[in-house]
């Protein structure tokens, strides 16, 4: 469903992303892990069509994102790392605005709204202004805005930011539930999130994809079958090894 083909992105002279390629299929949760500034957010911004790659190609559901950005956006639910919300709007007004902007109207909008509010547990804050909600609730509102049109593809940048441990556990369950019919790619620098919630891992460092694959395969590839993601990550960064498609 998501194909990134040799994505490269420059910010001026700085190469933020360097020839990154990967795919994510329907029913799969892929964790995108790397330290701050590794290029995770830039890759997600390109996949969401917010930024154009300097070179490379993005195919979403078979559609070229550079050629058909509107069709691609209809298929994507995107939560940016900054959790972009209109703080002066009421929660219900904000979600309805996003739904309308995504082409939902009348009964269809009402159904999607009810379902998303229930999924994200927002019943208690619907009449509050977004700015009055806690960080955890704001993150849930952002997630609801990414889900309201029931997209087949979810791109989530640091989705557990601001969550307490219970909310993190609930989020992992939600992610599992959502991934049944979707392709989910989420970025984080919290190793535990990736270990607990993802089927497959992409490891990025300084704009380069160091490795991708299932955790046991990655551990085996560095010669330490019992290694956790933290150890795998440290090993790859130190050796600079490129274990593509482990």
């Amino acid at each position, binding site marked *: 469903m998501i194909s990134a083909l040799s994505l490269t992105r420059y910010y001026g002279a700085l190469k933020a992303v360097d020839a990154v390629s990967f795919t994510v299929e329907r029913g799969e949760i892929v964790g995108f892990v790397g330290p701050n500034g590794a290029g995770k957010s830039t890759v997600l*911004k390109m996949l*969401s*069509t*917010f*930024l*154009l790659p300097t070179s490379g190609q993005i195919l979403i559901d078979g559609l070229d994102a550079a050629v058909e950005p*509107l*069709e691609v*956006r*209809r298929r*994507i639910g*995107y939560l*940016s790392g*900054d*959790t*972009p*919300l*209109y*703080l*002066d*709007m009421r929660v219900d*007004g904000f979600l309805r*605005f*996003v739904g*309308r*902007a*995504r*082409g939902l109207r009348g009964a269809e909008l009402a159904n999607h709204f009810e379902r998303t509010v229930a999924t994200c547990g927002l019943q208690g804050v619907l009449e509050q202004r977004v700015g009055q909600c806690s960080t955890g609730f704001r993150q849930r509102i952002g997630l609801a*805005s990414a889900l309201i049109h029931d997209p087949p593809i979810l791109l989530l940048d640091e989705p557990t930011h601001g969550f307490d441990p219970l909310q993190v556990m609930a989020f992992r369950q939600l992610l599992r539930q959502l991934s049944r019919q979707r392709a989910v790619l989420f970025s984080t620098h919290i190793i535990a999130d990736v270990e607990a919630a993802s089927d497959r891992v992409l490891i990025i460092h300084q704009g380069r994809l160091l490795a991708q694959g299932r955790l046991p395969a990655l551990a085996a590839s560095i010669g330490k079958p019992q290694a956790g993601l933290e150890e795998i990550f440290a090993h790859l960064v130190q050796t600079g090894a490129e274990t593509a498609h482990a």
Partner: protein
Amino acid sequence: MPELRSARAYGEGALVVCARELGAYFDSPIAYICAAVFLALSGTTFMNTFFLDGVVDMGPYFEVLPFLLIPFLPALSMRTWAEERAQHTFELLLTLPLRPSQLVLGKYLAALGFYLVVLAGSLPIPLMLCWLGDPDLGLILANYLGAASLGGLFLAFGVFVSCLTRNQIVAFVLAALLGFLFVFSGHEQVIEVLDGLSPSWQAGTWLAETVSALPHYQALGRGVVALADLAYFALLSAFFLWANEQVLRRGKY
């Protein structure tokens, strides 16, 4: 009929953005304060002239209006894009399945709508004049058309300038400077001074005839509704909206 359906979808998308923006204006204390100051200043200036001259004529209201719009409209338009950038909602908007032109149009129509509502706050003046005497209603209508057109132009470049920065103060100052240029370049005394500085190529007259909005506004204010004046406002406003759309498109690179 696919063209009709897509035109309808395009309009609906722009209206969704417009409705959100209008809601934000009517929810903003800054917008209310600016509107109240604008109405108080324009109203008291007119009433002062009205009591001194004792003529049933709304002309003096519209003579002062362009100078009051120089600070008022940039105060309305400064937030349109700058605030989106500062609050990071820019990314939300640009990843919705809407064209950049729909976003620009929606924001512009909302700012114009709010301005027209504020301008409608001056309607008690013509009502009062009708009650006191027999004013030329056609002339008043032409003047309102001029005020709407001039405001439309101010907001078009105000929204454009707001897209160039994340700082609302910078957006305000740049838009006010542009407004100053478009108004004062058509002012008689400025034309005289500039012509005096460059007698060979008459820079003042050239500026007034080619750039300035004031002569076109004043022509409408005399009751002459000419296509050339309306086209000036429409084309120049459209140019700034197009430039705004280009900035959004270029921002992806």
